[in-house]
């Protein structure tokens, strides 16, 4: 598909270049310009966190999306990288070593690579459930060890460092958050390019082969174990870099960074964004960080929403957000994207009803169960003031959910029909929808 579009523009080398690298230029410009638009301190912190999580979730997706290895313990490499980076910062600052701060993430990366090498050697011998279980075991093992080895992991309070006490180059001391942002953004950009480049190498292609059909990959002459092992090491390296960036950003590493919860959240990010496409984890990291920052401000039940969004994604859009976007790319290319708008617009009604009902139900329940004891039953939602202990809001919420589900069932097939008409043409679309 992309080959044909490339061939069509082959006559014009400038356009060809733009097509190929345009997206990266856009990404670079966006990264450079964002802090000029969102200048507040909170926005800057959020964007730093996004940069770190983009690297981490892309590294994770090298395993899950590209090689088909489901890991439940990838925070090990992120956390160990972060801890070593914190220690490195302290050693460098204490010994006045001539090493500038921007190099520190590399220390984390090398730590991730080392442990990727050690743990990868034992865990990548098998794929599938066995690999998933070994990664879970190793993850829990290191997480429990982090509470025992207080010297290295610092116990509950963790290890702190000071990033401004390092060698200064060109007067940049990395005191203000904006300087840290540009440091993280540049590492993020470099890592994104490196990881994308990896998917285009023969090894990257073999990863996909090992994921899709390990038997045939073996017959072609590749050792699937070796492919998994190398990918695992590289993924550990990038996860370690993300950990190093986190160490610089927070100037603190504690047991949470290496826990099962962190491994779980990177899995959620990659999956919500879409593991089938390179850009998926990037979308996922951005969305999940946004949700974490803003939802936790708005509602006390934000973790519940987060879990529900994940379940909905798994049930109805296993391709993630990137999958949903890619579904519509053929429509865009055929120029039939506008055809589906009316059908989608109609579906917006039950979707909004369902979401509004669910939000009302959760918020009312949260208020009634958690806050009523201290603040009383009066509450406001969507600008409407009511009391959470009366029957009416509950009934309205349930009716909205029920109505949304019913209308969705009723109109769902029509939307699917409109999509296949737009994707395959009217006549074929009829055949398919039959």
């Amino acid at each position, binding site marked *: 598909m992309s080959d044909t579009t490339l061939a069509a523009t082959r006559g014009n080398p400038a356009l060809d270049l733009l097509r190929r690298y345009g997206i990266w230029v856009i990404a670079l410009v966006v990264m450079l310009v964002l802090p000029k638009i969102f200048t507040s301190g909170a926005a800057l912190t959020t964007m730093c966190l996004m940069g770190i999580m983009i690297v981490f979730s892309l590294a994770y997706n090298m395993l899950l999306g590209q090689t088909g290895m489901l890991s439940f313990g990838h925070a090990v490499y992120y956390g160990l990288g972060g801890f070593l980076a914190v220690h490195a910062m302290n050693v460098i600052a204490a010994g006045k070593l001539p090493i500038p701060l921007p190099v520190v993430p590399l220390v984390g990366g090398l730590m991730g690579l080392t442990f990727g090498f050690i743990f990868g050697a034992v865990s990548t011998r098998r794929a599938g459930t066995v690999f998933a279980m070994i990664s879970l075991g190793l993850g829990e093992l290191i997480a429990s060890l982090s509470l025992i080895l207080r010297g290295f992991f610092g116990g509950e309070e963790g290890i702190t460092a000071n990033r401004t006490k390092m060698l200064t180059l060109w007067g940049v001391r990395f005191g203000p958050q904006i300087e840290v942002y540009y440091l993280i953004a540049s590492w993020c950009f470099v890592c994104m390019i490196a990881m994308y480049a990896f998917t285009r190498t023969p090894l990257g292609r073999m990863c996909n082969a090992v994921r899709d059909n390990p038997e045939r990959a073996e017959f072609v002459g590749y050792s699937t174990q070796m492919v998994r092992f190398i990918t695992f090491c590289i993924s550990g390296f990038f996860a370690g870099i993300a950990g190093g960036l986190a160490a610089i950003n927070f100037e603190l590493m504690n047991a949470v960074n290496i826990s099962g919860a962190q491994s779980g959240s990177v899995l959620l990010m990659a999956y919500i964004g879409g593991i089938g496409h390179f850009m998926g984890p990037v979308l996922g990291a951005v969305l999940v960080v946004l949700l974490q920052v803003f939802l936790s401000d708005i509602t006390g039940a934000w*973790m519940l929403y987060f879990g529900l969004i994940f379940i909905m994604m798994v049930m109805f859009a296993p391709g993630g957000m990137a999958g949903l976007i890619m579904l519509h790319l053929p429509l865009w290319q055929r120029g039939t994207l506008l055809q589906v708008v009316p059908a989608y617009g109609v579906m917006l009604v039950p979707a909004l009803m369902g979401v509004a009902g669910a939000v009302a139900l959760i918020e009312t329940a949260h208020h009634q169960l958690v806050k009523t004891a201290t603040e009383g039953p009066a509450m406001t939602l969507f600008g409407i003031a009511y009391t959470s202990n009366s029957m009416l809001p509950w009934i309205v919420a349930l009716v909205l959910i029920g109505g949304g589900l019913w209308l969705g069932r009723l109109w769902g097939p029509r939307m699917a029909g409109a999509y296949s008409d737009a994707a395959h043409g009217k006549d074929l679309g009829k055949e398919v929808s039959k």
Partner: protein
Amino acid sequence: MLELVIFSTLNGVLYGMLLFLLASGLTLIFSMMGVLNFAHASFYMLGAYFGFQISQWLDFWVALFVAPVCVGLVGAAVERWGLRTVHKWGHVPELLFTFGLAFVIEEMVQMIWGKLPVDYRVPKLLDFPAFELFGTTYPAFRMFMLLISVAIFLVLLLVLTRSRIGLIIQAALTHPNMVAMLGHNVPKVFMMVFGFGSGLAGLAGVIAGPALVTQPSMAHVLGPILFVVVVFGGLGSLSGAFIASLMIGLIQTFAIAINYSIGDLLTSVGMARPVQGMLSDLWQVTVAQVGPVVPYLMLVLILIFRPTGLMGTRES
């Protein structure tokens, strides 16, 4: 010393039997549906909370029967309207679905019953010491827990090996297509096994709740240990799960009682223990502190050297 051995053995066997109540359901579900159910420990937690709520409203003895049924119904509903939808996408989404479900259940429990432990008490009828040994008493409720779990174990064994339902379940474990050909409704069998397994986990929660602590973190503390049991014993093997449950129960209980470190060992053979350096803690760590790590070490080692587990016949 003898006192320690006897009490640790009792507690270890009790903990092991509780683990088996959970692991038996998990391993059955796994071998039938190929789903490693991350939410299994959440059903155990639901059992504890349902048991607490029902014993608040009515009575513990009502809760003992009603709460597991409620949890079983929740489990069956999850299979019917959740897992069955995801099934068509493959095993990884199924696994992730249960992963998300565990997350949601924990959040809901926190919302309804709060983040702090609830006051789930031992029923009055069983609130007395069962016997006294070397001046230490052993609570009757623990004996009751042991009794219930052994009874369930025996019933499970009889049902699976001697009854017609057990025959169908065993057949569906290995030859699901053939069972469907013979006219059995395999999805319905799946739903019932899932519901039944969840119900067993719920029962474990009802009886473990008063003895251990009923709090929102109880699921994710136990969850990974359950996987260790199931994988160590061999995926899909009930007898393997039984052996692994007892082993892990005993190891964890005995580890807590032993207060020695490698450093102590080195000193006793006349070597100086290293005290400097970042990893010096390694020498000070006592066996009791290492206790929680041991199961994961066992998991990793068995997967490396014998991926089928102790008694298992297949890898995934």
